[in-house]
């Protein structure tokens, strides 16, 4: 039973354009959501988070949107840069406990 789903295994975007990565969850008890970025042979690196009391959080080029009624969140990267090419994991938790991860979306930013 996968509680966090990333239905797009890969995404290709041109440099300078917007990248939109999507994530759906099924557990309505989740109250904290995060995005992690992972390069090959490295561990996931924390990128940005959002609590369930908000619907948007922005940090530089990265914005996370949360739609609780749809149990959906998305990560927007604008403008996309070649260094953004990585695997992006969506994760969710209840009351700051263990994280439940999605399967990841591989983003390729092309020149």
């Amino acid at each position: 039973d996968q509680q966090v789903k990333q239905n797009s295994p890969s995404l290709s975007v041109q440099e300078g354009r917007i990248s939109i990565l999507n994530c759906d969850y099924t557990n309505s008890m989740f109250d904290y959501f995060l995005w992690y970025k992972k390069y090959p042979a490295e561990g996931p690196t924390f990128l940005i988070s959002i609590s369930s009391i908000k619907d948007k959080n922005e940090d530089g080029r990265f914005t996370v949107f949360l739609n609780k009624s749809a149990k959906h969140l998305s990560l927007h990267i604008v403008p996309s840069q070649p260094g953004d090419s990585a695997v992006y994991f969506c994760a969710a938790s209840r009351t700051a406990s263990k994280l439940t991860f999605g399967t990841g979306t591989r983003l390729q930013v092309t020149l």
Partner: protein
Amino acid sequence: EAGVTQFPSHSVIEKGQTVTLRCDPISGHDNLYWYRRVMGKEIKFLLHFVKESKQDESGMPNNRFLAERTGGTYSTLKVQPAELEDSGVYFCASSQGGWGSPLHFGNGTRLTVT
């Protein structure tokens, strides 16, 4: 500040052998987690320590896996005896704890059981 370090980075063992993975969390982080990623799938939770106590071990697949964190500092994860399906990347993460405190991951140990 040193990050989370894991040793070894790679391990190749035969089915039936024993392997011990080590994790050194960020200094001062009471919370330590083990996760595993198998065959490019999702990163799955194994267990959570708060200092030396096991807070949640609901993700441990079976009794062939044993995690310890003596003294509340570094942690070890032993697999004995290893099976083919144990192959994957084992990640350790630590955090200061509390709501909103993100996990900091190590680079993982890639375990291959042949």
